[in-house]
């Protein structure tokens, strides 16, 4: 088995007395797509925030390729290859679609500190941005402000930003939330495309069971902030414990 790219060790965060994520220890490997499931409030998004750095862990560690990221800021983690798309659309609303994507490309290139040459003159950055524009089929709206896009296109732009970061670890938080049935497959095709690259690790929070079935190599179940189950899709889908959690019959506590 390949070496894990991302490891969380006893990852924990408390808000006052409430333990939102409780000692979650697991590892993710390149070439593997792991779907994280669990009822609302299970701590899935909080777990993501701990990995990408929007929240700091109360205890435990986040390790990527042997480097401890736990104390790092989100931007430092991004430079270490952690890429994150958000559940609620989280864009640069007044900037154009192309500018949004180019910012993500530029963050990777380190050209953000160039203060003299015109940004438009960095044709390599623009060319790379245009590649992601095409991959996400947003060419037609390239010069519209992000805020003016319909919801489905905003979700696609969210994915485009993540792809443009060219990370090692792709974290998708309900990428198809609120998307119509015509648009969702576009995004899912993109994720399936990333999955074919054996060097990339994909983490996906998703509720729609058909999506989970189509994409998952592995499923982990979070419940009340704890890692409840971890295994192959068939195994997890048929397990009694997962059904109980989803149907609210869990004995752990409601």
């Amino acid at each position, binding site marked *: 088995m390949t070496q894990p790219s991302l490891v969380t060790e006893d990852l924990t965060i408390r808000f006052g007395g409430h333990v939102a994520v409780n000692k979650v220890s697991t590892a993710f490997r390149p070439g593997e797509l792991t779907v994280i499931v669990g009822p609302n409030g299970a701590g899935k998004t909080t777990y993501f925030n701990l990995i990408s750095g929007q929240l700091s862990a109360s205890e435990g560690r986040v390790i990527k390729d042997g480097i401890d990221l736990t104390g790092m800021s989100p931007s430092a983690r991004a430079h270490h290859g952690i890429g*994150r798309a958000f559940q609620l659309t989280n864009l640069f609303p007044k900037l154009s679609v192309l500018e949004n994507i180019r910012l993500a490309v530029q*963050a990777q290139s380190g050209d953000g500190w160039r203060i003299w040459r015109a*940004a438009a003159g960095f044709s390599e950055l623009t060319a790379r941005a245009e590649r992601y524009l095409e991959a996400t089929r947003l060419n037609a709206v390239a010069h519209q402000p992000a805020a003016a896009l319909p919801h489905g296109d905003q979700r696609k732009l969210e994915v485009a930003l993540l792809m443009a970061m060219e990370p090692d670890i792709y974290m998708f938080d309900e990428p198809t939330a609120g998307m119509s049935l015509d648009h969702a497959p576009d995004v899912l095709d993109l994720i399936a495309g990333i999955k074919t690259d054996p060097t990339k690790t994909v983490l996906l929070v998703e509720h729609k069971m058909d999506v989970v079935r189509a994409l998952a190599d592995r499923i982990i179940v979070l419940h009340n902030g704890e890692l409840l189950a971890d295994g192959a899709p068939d195994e997890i889908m048929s397990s009694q414990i997962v059904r109980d959690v989803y149907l609210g019959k869990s004995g752990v506590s409601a």
Partner: protein
Amino acid sequence: MTQTPTIGALFIKAVVLLIAAGLLFAPFLFQDVRALEVAARICVFIVLVASYDLLIGYTGIVSFAHTMFFGFGAYGAAIALKQIGNSWGAITLGTLAGMALSLVLAVAIGLLSLRVKAIFFAMITLAAASVALVLASQLNTITGGEDGITYRVPDLFKPSTKLFTDEAGKVVQIGGVKLNGKLAAYYFVFATSLALFIVMLRMVGSPLGTVLKAIRENEARAEAIGYRVVAYRTFVFCIAALVASIAGSIYAVWLKYTGPDTALSFAIMIDILLMVVIGGMGTMWGAVIGAVLMVMAQYYLRDLMSVAAEATAGIPLLPHLLEPDRWLFWLGIIFILLVYFFPKGIAGTIMDKGRRT
């Protein structure tokens, strides 16, 4: 794949070019002492307002310490000219000292407080600016206290200096304008201001400018895609402080006087805020338009009103309303109307017009 500019944007750029031409030829176009004062003040304030717009308009940082940095530059040049004498070396030294002080304070304020919420940052800048103002008026022996400092500037800028003389030894005139030291001083102000403005224009169009806009739009996402927000904010705060400081030094050289009212008071801070709002935040062109309109209003609204009051002398009530002493009242009304009809400032609102998709 380039974006076509709007008709409004082309119009604003044309207006700015006209203003630039007007300032370039100001000594020849408007041949009186007051007009040249106005033109020089406009040059300095364009730079000051544009540098403030880097903070508030481009990055979304609200600071009340901008006049403090302006004041450091002005007092730096003033004290050096007073203590060392009217040499170019004194100007250079004073300007550099002002910049150094500005930089140290900007780094300190930036690193300590740009992490915290915007409102706390604004309060900290307000406190720093208040301390600077109090110090300037208390440290009598150095700053001249409330009276400020008057000093002499290099001989090149003396009105009696003849830049070019004819055979008879008299100063050469072009179009009735004497090529004297006053003219040299004006072009010193104009050229330095233009250079600073162009530097800022390049900056906002550079990759750095795109990062600043990203931080303004969505700080958390900018951080998430890999930009160190605190570092960028501190950097732009330092740049803005340095530019304001140089603008202060230039203005000190032009005025030959520096005091709390010309360089440090909160009235100037409010002027800057009004100029940036009227012109339009987040566009360098807005700084130009805001500074021109506001400085012109401050100098000429009274004149205009006394003309209007005389013209309406026969009509009841109107002459009383148009009494020149009520100019601040009318300025206030003009501001309210401007903000109402141009919610994004004059440049910002007009540039959005005629968008071609």
